[in-house]
């Protein structure tokens, strides 16, 4: 997700192409739809592709499961890309043009300048984006519940299953509580170690 959003954000920030402004508006419009609203369409594509895969000669249980995982990951990531692109664009916008020009005048190609000067300067942005992406994946429930088979739960969907509907009577609560604690740990650790970076991300970018 970071890998897709960052170059897109760079392009939006630094290049002038036709329809740039309207594309940006379109992106934010995409973000306006929550994942649930799109789930029917996403599910329809899933069913078609899953069936096609199941009927092909390559089909095996492992492959189908891997496909299910991959599908959830890609579908969920796609939902995050519009907002991430906006966020990253903000970070790129804050780098003075002169810094990039300086690199190019110093002899760098545009790609090299991007890699060696621009990317290191948007590190806080990249970090923030990675954290948001991680959090989004970690807390994701709906897509996981809908697309993944019951026998391959994520931690979130496991807790959800134990606390809801059919399983509630048979749940062993100490285990569920332990799972919930484990579920919390990465989140807490992430924030402990990245809060300085996040703060920097919020206050924004480079002080040249």
């Amino acid at each position, binding site marked *: 997700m970071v890998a897709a959003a960052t170059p897109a954000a760079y392009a939006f920030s630094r290049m002038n192409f036709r329809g740039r402004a309207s594309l940006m508006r379109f992106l934010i419009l995409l973000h306006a739809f929550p994942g649930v609203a799109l789930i029917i369409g996403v599910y329809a594509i899933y069913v078609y592709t899953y069936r096609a895969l199941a009927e092909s000669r390559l089909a095996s249980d492992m492959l189908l499961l891997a496909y299910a995982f991959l599908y959830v990951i890609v579908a969920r990531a796609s939902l995050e890309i519009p907002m991430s692109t906006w966020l990253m664009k903000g970070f790129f916008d804050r780098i*003075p043009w*002169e*810094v990039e*020009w*300086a690199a*190019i*005048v*110093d*002899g760098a190609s545009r790609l090299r300048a991007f890699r060696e000067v621009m990317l290191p300067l948007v590190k806080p942005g990249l970090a923030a984006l990675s954290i948001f992406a991680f959090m989004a994946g970690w807390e994701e429930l709906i897509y996981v519940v809908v697309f993944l088979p019951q026998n391959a739960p994520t931690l979130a969907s496991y807790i959800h299953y134990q606390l809801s509907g059919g399983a509630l009577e048979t749940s062993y609560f100490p285990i569920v509580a332990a799972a919930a604690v484990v579920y919390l740990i990465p989140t807490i650790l992430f924030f402990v170690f990245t809060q300085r970076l996040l703060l920097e991300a919020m206050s924004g970018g480079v002080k040249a």
Partner: protein
Amino acid sequence: MVEVELRGVWKVFGDFVAVRDVNLVFPDGKFSSILGPSGSGKTTLLYLIAGIYKPTRGEILFDGRDVSKLPPNKRNVGLVFQNYALYPHMTVFDNIAFPLRLRKTPSHVIERKVVEVAEMLGIEGLLDRYPAQLSGGQQQRVALARALVKEPEVLLLDEPLSNLDALVRLRIRGELKRLQQDLGITAIYVTHDQSEAMAMADLIAVIHKGEVQQVGAPEEIYRRPRNLFVAGFIGMPPANLVTLKVRAVPEPCVELPGGSLYCLEGLRGEKLKRLGIEKVVLGFRPEDVVLSEHPLDDYLALEGEVYVVEPLGRENLITLILSDGQPAKALAPPVVNPRPGERMYMNVEPSKAMLFDPETELNIDLIELETLPGIARASIVGESKGSAEGEGLGEVED
């Protein structure tokens, strides 16, 4: 080192013309300055030379080689930005080494060259610091070192001193000029500060609204401004510009504030006659004014009332409101300290007085010398309009 030439260069952003038909030659090994107020297109011009912008029309030549289509990384120019544009995530050493690394220079050569240039600029003790830990003057040197380390053919400087405080600026100004002379590098220096340009440059190109107004040595631009803009821009304070009526009795004369007439003889009178203008702008430098209580003979004496006296230490800056309501400034020794409201005369030696045609804004003394392209609008007036004997010219209504 190369000579940089701009041939008929235009730069248009949307429908805004930033640079209009500029023809300039920056001589090899000389310190040239592009001088203009903010928004005049001077930085655009520098970026055109660096290759950051592509000219809309025209050619840019380095020693006769057309580089107009080359991107900046193929031009071998050193550029110091106004805000230095150091790479904040790299140490000073890495900042300076960056252009060399891009050229795949072996690391021991990089080390040697970086230390060399750092020593030359006196920043060898700062090599492992980050830009944020440096003062403005130090950052400025790092930026300069980064521009110089790759031994560029042209050194371009975009207002490198404007972010420094006054004392540091004065010191670096001297050092920069010395450095350029020692290296013998072609340097082009963009500034809005005319005192900087005067002090440092061998050649000044004054630019305004994207057009070259005048090119010349500092003294020439100071003493013989080509037009009203240059006269009103160069100098601290700039030249006084006073609009006067022209009367023809029988030689063309100008009506000075206070009522006296000053008649122009010789070439000037002849030119004024042929121009046939009803008004002329008199320009004179504040330091060329002699203040007196009575008009002096053989001087252009302008009567006025003292408005304010500003003591500058070395001299007093005295503002007068002339009898016709126009303000003018004079520099006088500190002992001259008139009270506001006092009646005085500003006396200007005729040889120090400049005359401008208010319509074309050109210096009348230079009209025949017009050779610079881009400002060739100076229409030398034909006989049909310009006869001073023509009726009605003597009396001018407002």
